[in-house]
């Protein structure tokens, strides 16, 4: 009898969180599910359409293109940011005054609001007045990110690397700092080279933080909206229209709520699927 009373009290304690999650996650998600299966008209008219929007989105070339661009973007920035972040973390001093200086410098890009990052890079890269754009053109490169897809992509990737490599650096640095000195001492006694120390001590010990870093960077970059919206607005043409930009165009630009809702759900499931794959692959072979 008393056990049951305790149980009910526990539910009471969990209740605020349940309500909170319901209002900020479950209910909005259900609204989206609701839209995704209906055709909407003005005056709150709804007609049930079943899986029509899902079929339409999945077979549309526009969706395929933006998904492909999104995957491209995410894999390029992962391929740059993860190795670069680890390399910077390895090069950073472990203790003393300069360790603090480096940490503060590294944390800085993470503290800047995302739209400000976009605006900064937009101005920085303008071919006629921006420091980067003007310098590149003066050096003889034909660079104009508002007109050339390649320049737009390069700028977008440079911006993301500048903005987010710090996160990988900080996580890796924390991982490296937790390796006991005895490992390095043992490696010196065993005559290990710097590469062997990295390969057999540092990398294995970084495995867990790198799993987190890759997952975070994957999810965040797959969701990226603000910075490319401010920098390129998806252009030139559709060349930098990533999934989120395309989604907003459909939902708010064209006000096609049904297809946009269906696309949102597909988008969400793709992120879930890839995160699961990453996590499974990176933690495979661990029994504990």
């Amino acid at each position, binding site marked *: 009898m008393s056990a049951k009373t305790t149980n009910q009290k526990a539910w009471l304690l969990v209740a605020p969180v349940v309500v909170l999650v319901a209002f900020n996650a479950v209910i909005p998600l259900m609204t989206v599910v609701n839209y995704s299966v209906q055709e909407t008209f003005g005056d709150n008219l709804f007609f049930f359409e079943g899986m029509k929007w899902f079929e339409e989105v999945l077979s549309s070339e526009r969706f395929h293109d933006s998904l492909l661009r999104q995957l491209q973007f995410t894999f390029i920035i992962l391929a740059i940011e993860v190795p670069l972040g680890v390399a910077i973390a390895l090069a950073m001093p472990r203790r003393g005054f300069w360790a603090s200086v480096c940490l503060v410098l590294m944390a800085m890009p993470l503290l800047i609001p995302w739209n400000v990052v976009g605006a900064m890079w937009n101005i920085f890269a303008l071919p006629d007045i921006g420091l980067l754009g003007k310098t590149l053109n003066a050096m003889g490169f034909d660079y104009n990110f508002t007109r050339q897809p390649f320049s737009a992509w390069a700028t977008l990737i440079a911006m993301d690397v500048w903005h987010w490599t710090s996160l990988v650096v900080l996580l890796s640095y924390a991982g490296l700092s937790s390796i006991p000195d*005895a490992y390095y*001492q*043992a490696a*010196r*006694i*065993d005559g*290990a080279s710097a590469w062997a120390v990295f390969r*057999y001590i540092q990398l*294995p010990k970084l495995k867990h933080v790198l799993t987190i870093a890759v997952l975070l960077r994957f999810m965040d970059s797959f969701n990226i909206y603000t910075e490319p919206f401010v920098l390129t607005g998806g252009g030139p043409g559709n060349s930098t229209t990533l999934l989120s930009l395309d989604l907003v165009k459909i939902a708010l630009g064209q006000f096609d709520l049904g297809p946009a809702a269906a696309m949102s759900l597909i988008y969400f499931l793709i992120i879930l699927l890839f995160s699961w794959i990453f996590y499974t692959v990176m933690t495979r072979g661990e029994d504990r």
Partner: protein
Amino acid sequence: MARIELRDLRHSYLAHPAGDADYALKKVDLVWEDGGAYALLGPSGCGKTTLLNIISGLLTPSEGSILFDDVEVTDKSPEQRQIAQVFQFPVVYDTMTVYDNLAFPLRNRGVPENDVDARVRAVADMTDLTAMLKQKAAGLTADGKQKISLGRGLVREDVNVIMFDEPLTVIDPHLKWKLRSKLKELHQRVKTTMIYVTHDQTEALTFADQVVVMHEGWVVQQGTPVELFERPRHTFVGHFIGSPGMNLMPCELADSVARVAGHAIAIEDAPKTPPHGDAALELGVRPEFVSFVDVDEGLPVDIVAVRDTGRNHIVETDFAGHRVRALVPEGMPVPEGRAAIRFDPAYTRVYADSWLFE
């Protein structure tokens, strides 16, 4: 294999040490003979790990020099010194198999794979790791991992010394003695100099032929376990080794006779020369050498407490205001109330300012 000599070693972790108090190692002069089994014993913070790291080359001493077979190695790296070390917490290369772990020091030195294989199998046999050679090192228990660490030391034939930094800290109690006797057995087989750092006197006394006792940055005594027990050179050794430790009480010394609170105490080979004026004198005798005698024949004491340890009784007495413990073997009568004790003259010592006065 090498004879290791430490000359006038001093070490401070500060950039500009001022007085003795700033030194973690105050002054160390030691010789470790080739092939010996040594223990470095002392409480936490006495400087033993510092000394160990200086010998292995992980730390460069502030002053003094280290010689391996009369060749100066003070500025050489651990790799150049050809030493091996087993750390307090097991250090293994997690992603490698046990085999690759053992082969690692040899492969780093470019040894041909045929020789590597022969050595690894020989060492695995010595350390009972043969059955696990193909397993990932990460999956082994703590004692298995410590065996790998040890194996990585044994695998190189040219190792000058193998050092152990409290290697049994994380080992389960019932495996400790097994691993310890394994070490002892290995030492007899390979005859490499071994230095074993510990704060546990049982470990030190069972492993080593020679024990070096450290206290606050000083080496207070080097000797066999029997010497440490029978003739402690410093009151710290008397107190730290033995359970319970040595009884110490202030005394006076005049004309080769020691007196505690007016009672004359007989001492064999009592110091002939009087100590210099202001030295603090203490009389030291181990509880094992305190015995009960007839009331009229010994020093009068009051029994304060009796503790039964199983093998013997520790009898705490009050002797003229000083706490004196006596060890009474099981089966012998334990007196009550007023009694008299006698110190064995052969094992009663006088200490001046904590150092043995002879």
